[in-house]
Each structure stands twice: as structure tokens, then as C-alpha cells.
């Protein structure tokens, strides 16, 4: 199984003023770790503007910012909990806003090759036990453990 969870992409307390700030800060870690090209953050921001990725799930709102594969060097998923919730547009619905508590940011190069990762991320969305563990994770160790368990 390809590794997809990395310590440097686990952030227990991301202090961001708004969605763009959160994406820029978290995206900088993806860039620093060599997971994405320097075009990644701008592409994610542009996509988020046009097609927002906030999701109101059962028990938690989160966002899953991402973009297309040409901006990605190696696949990964990062988990950042927001120090205070940040407003994202809801996917598929321009009118609805969500107060995202967590970012699941994905660097996907080829969806067909990274199908396991897509399955796992989607599995978290619909798994209330997993969401509760992410929600309860208050420090790096707990968040890394949850990410490894459900996304690794």
C-alpha cells in the first residue's frame, strides 16, 4: 500500500482567518514537503472560489480542498484541524456556507491510481466513529493516530 499520511501534513491547530488563509497555510506545507508543485495553492484557491469543497456531514463540517493532478508531485492527504471554524462554501450549492472545523486537503495525481485513498477519504465522511475521533483529537499524536487509522 502506498504511503499517503505524512507527519508534516498533520496539523492539530491551524490558526486561519478565512478559507483562503487556511488553504495558503496548509498548502505551504504540501509545497515544503515536495508533495505539490508551486502552482498548487493558486489552483486550489481558484477551484475553491468557483467550486467550493465544504461539506456538512453528520456531526461535523469540513472542507476537502484539492485540484487536478498536474499540480501534484506525489499523492498525499493532509489533516488540519482549525483553531476556530472557517467559513467555506458548500460543495454543489453556492448558497450554503459551512463552518469547517477541519481540512482534509488532498494531493491527487491520478484518481484511478489513487482510488484507495479516495475510498478512504470518502469512508471518513460517512463514518461517524471516525469523524468523532478526528473531532476529539486535541493534539498531534491523537490526530496523527486517527489519520493513520482511517486514511493511512
Amino acid at each position, binding site marked *: 500500500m502506498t504511503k499517503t499520511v505524512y507527519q508534516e501534513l498533520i496539523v492539530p491547530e491551524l490558526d486561519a482567518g478565512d478559507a483562503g488563509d487556511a488553504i495558503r497555510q496548509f498548502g505551504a506545507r504540501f509545497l515544503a514537503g515536495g508533495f505539490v508543485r508551486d502552482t498548487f495553492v493558486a489552483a486550489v484557491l481558484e477551484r475553491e472560489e468557483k467550486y467550493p469543497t465544504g461539506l456538512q456531514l453528520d456531526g461535523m463540517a469540513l472542507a476537502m480542498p*484539492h485540484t487536478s493532478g498536474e499540480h501534484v508531485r506525489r499523492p498525499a492527504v493532509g489533516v488540519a484541524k482549525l483553531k476556530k471554524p472557517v467559513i467555506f462554501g458548500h460543495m454543489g450549492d453556492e448558497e450554503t456556507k459551512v463552518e469547517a472545523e477541519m481540512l482534509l486537503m488532498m494531493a491527487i495525481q491520478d484518481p484511478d491510481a489513487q482510488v484507495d485513498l479516495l475510498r478512504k477519504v470518502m469512508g471518513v465522511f460517512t463514518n461517524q466513529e471516525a469523524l468523532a475521533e478526528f473531532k476529539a483529537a486535541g493534539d498531534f499524536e491523537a490526530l496523527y493516530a486517527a489519520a493513520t487509522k482511517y486514511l493511512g
Partner: protein
Amino acid sequence: MKNVKILCVCGSGAVSSSMVALKIREMLRDRGYNAATMESSPTSAESVLASGGFDAIACVSPVYADFGIPKISALGMLTGMGEEQVINDLVKVLEEKYGK
């Protein structure tokens, strides 16, 4: 198993639509359909549809244009709230076209 073809649409044309496509294929199989899926963004939907033979469009990003092919919202596939509704909507479209 009936063979059907579904276009899955999301903003990037790759990631969320692939997630939805995975689940649609699995859940339609349980309902007796062998679904082939393709993914596109809203802006590239028209050119992908031009390859022909699509029975339905499953959207997680809004598709405003009318291509003469039934559109259903597939957001419930991602949130897990309303998965069955999405499949029921799809099956209804397919049954209207092919019969039960």
C-alpha cells in the same frame, strides 16, 4: 445486468467525481446495473457527453446547461446523508429509459 453509462461531474473533473463514480458503480451493481462511469468538470461535460451513449449525469457541482440527459444531484454520495436517495433517483431515470 444492464449496461449503463453515467457521467459524474465535479469542479476539478477528477477527484470528487471519481469518489462519486466509485460509489455509484458499487451501488448500481447491487441494483442490477453494470455502470460505466466517466468524470468531467462542468465546463468539459459537453465534450465528454459528445462521445455518446450516456444515460444520466450525476453532479456534485452544479451543471446548468441542458444536454437532454437527466441530471441528478449526487452530493449525498459524499456526505453519506441520502446515498439511497441518489441511487433511487438514478434507478428511476434508468427504469424510465430501459424499463424495469
